[in-house]
């Protein structure tokens, strides 16, 4: 992809080095190194429990790593809170968490960034917000039939789109999406995939996506990283890998785990 070629050799927008995290006896992350370049869509795949969500929570400031470094534009940052991360332009979007179901689409887009008049009285400039919301959604090609509809009445895909739109409208430069297509139909997925690609290509937003569906990932991403047991074990541009290679990687990992399990139980192991 051109975005990568252009960016090759330049400093990654987001880079992590040796991120570790344990929860009691569970080691969730064993030293995660990733690089996300400007305008790039990076996919994270891996088994359940491989540590992908934990990694996202650390990068968005929700959890603290035990060790390791996070660099934004080559400079190390310390993220103590979600607010910190947001100040650096990083935002994780969880569509089911972000929106207020009872507020309208445009109110959600402007949540806590309302356009007001009359100073401290905080009189809402409803018309202005509606117009700006519509203009912004048109701009990023998100089509919502009625921006006055309550968020509750939208489909999952539309809610996700609104949540993403809010983050980018409020200047998020790095988006973290943890399984944004989970439980979505084909149409819904297409909506989000188009939005993500458009934001990356036309607005230079860098996006990290966790997803289990390889077909989606190949359509969506410029590059794929495979998480295995708290580490990134595979890093390729999508055109340099294939569905078969990824599947084989995951299956062999699965076999390895099964055999390790047998060994622990003292079973005789013969390679399948």
């Amino acid at each position, binding site marked *: 992809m051109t975005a990568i070629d252009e960016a090759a050799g330049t400093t990654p927008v987001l880079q992590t080095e040796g991120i570790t995290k344990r929860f009691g006896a569970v080691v969730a992350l064993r030293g995660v190194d990733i690089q996300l370049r400007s305008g790039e869509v990076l996919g994270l795949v891996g088994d359940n429990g491989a540590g992908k969500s934990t990694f996202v929570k650390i990068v968005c400031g929700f959890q603290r790593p035990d060790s390791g470094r996070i660099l934004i534009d080559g400079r190390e940052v310390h993220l103590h809170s*979600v*607010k910190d991360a947001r100040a650096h332009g990083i935002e994780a979007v969880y569509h089911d*968490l*972000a*929106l*207020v*179901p*009872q*507020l309208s689409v445009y*109110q959600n887009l402007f*949540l*806590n960034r*309302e356009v*007001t008049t009359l100073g401290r*009285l*905080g*009189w*809402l400039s*409803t018309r202005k917000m*509606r*117009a700006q919301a*519509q203009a912004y*959604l*048109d701009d990023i090609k*998100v*089509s*919502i*039939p*009625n*921006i*006055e509809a309550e968020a*509750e*009445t*939208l*489909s999952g*895909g*539309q809610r996700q*789109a609104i949540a993403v739109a809010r983050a980018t409208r409020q200047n998020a430069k790095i988006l973290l999406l943890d399984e944004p297509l989970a439980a979505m139909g084909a*149409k819904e997925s*297409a*909506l989000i995939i*188009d939005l993500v690609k458009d934001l990356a290509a036309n607005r230079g937003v860098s996006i990290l996506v966790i997803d289990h569906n390889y077909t989606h990932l190949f359509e969506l991403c410029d590059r794929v990283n495979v998480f295995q047991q708290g580490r990134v074990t595979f890093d390729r541009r999508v055109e340099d890998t294939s569905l078969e290679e990824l599947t084989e990687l995951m299956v062999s990992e699965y076999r390895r785990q099964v055999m390790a399990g047998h060994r622990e139980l003292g079973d005789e192991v013969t390679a399948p």
Partner: protein
Amino acid sequence: MASQATLTPGETSPAAPPAAPSTARRGPAGSLLRLFVSRREATIFVVAVAIIVYFAARTSEFYSYANIVTIVQYMAPIAVIGVGEVFLLTLGEIDLSAGQIFLVSPWIVVWLQQAGLPIGWAITVSLLCCLAIGAINGLITVLLNVPSFVTTLGTYFSLLGLVLIVSNDAQADMPGTTGTFGQIFGISSWSEIGWALLIVVALHIVLKRTRFGMHVTATGGNYLGAAEAGIPVRRVKVWSFMILAFGAGFIGLLDSIRIQSLDPASPGTTVMFSAVSAAVIGGTSLLGGRGTIIGATIGAIVLGVLEDGFNLIGVSANEFTLVTGLVILVAMAINVQLSRVGARMRT
């Protein structure tokens, strides 16, 4: 309008929900149903009109000037405290002490007057005390992270006890207020309802048209999400307790200036429960996120008309209490049903 701006003819939108069929309950019945689903106040409005028509048909006394004054004086405190409770219910909170704040504010005026303060100052300080009580309710709730049900139950009993102790169980007279000042603040028959309407309109505007009101809805609708977005959710809650406490204290002063005598033993629970009932039968959800000031106001009218109407046709207060209970249950059932229908219409 902006609402139609997105879809230009011929363009199909990937975002469009599986259009019409599932939403289709067409014809006048369908649009009526949609009206009731989208405007929660519609149900209670129909109920209000029905009972007004009923009582007006039963007795001509109902629409006499004197009787209308009686009704509006009865409903004014319920409306003011009710719309205050709408803020709290929208936040997923409740204030059980509001009725007691309503009763304590004139007592504070009496005590301060006895201590030698001029009436103007006594009233000012009393209202500040009400704000402080609201702040205490709110701060305890958000800082200790306890349900406001418990916090305000505590302040309710504390205030009740305080009045009983300081008043020595003796009734007192509200200091006389005269002249235009007195007329505006309580003595005129229309003073209380006038102020009540002013407060209702103001709070409706605050809830629907200001940043603070939007933050109330956001905090009640999605507490974590609102906090994530940087909304000062705790401060929003504390302010809401203070708004209600101030309104309750203020209308309490007007009420006592009209009635003139104060009874330390009367508990504030009656007016508080009526107020919460008004809010709930008006369509405000106890689960938070959805409040309607207009609904609560019509709810207060319903309660006022019921009480008065039963009185007129010779039904006792006991039966009124029973009917109030049934009205709450029925209104609740209708609202729950309407939310279900609403959910089905959407999917």
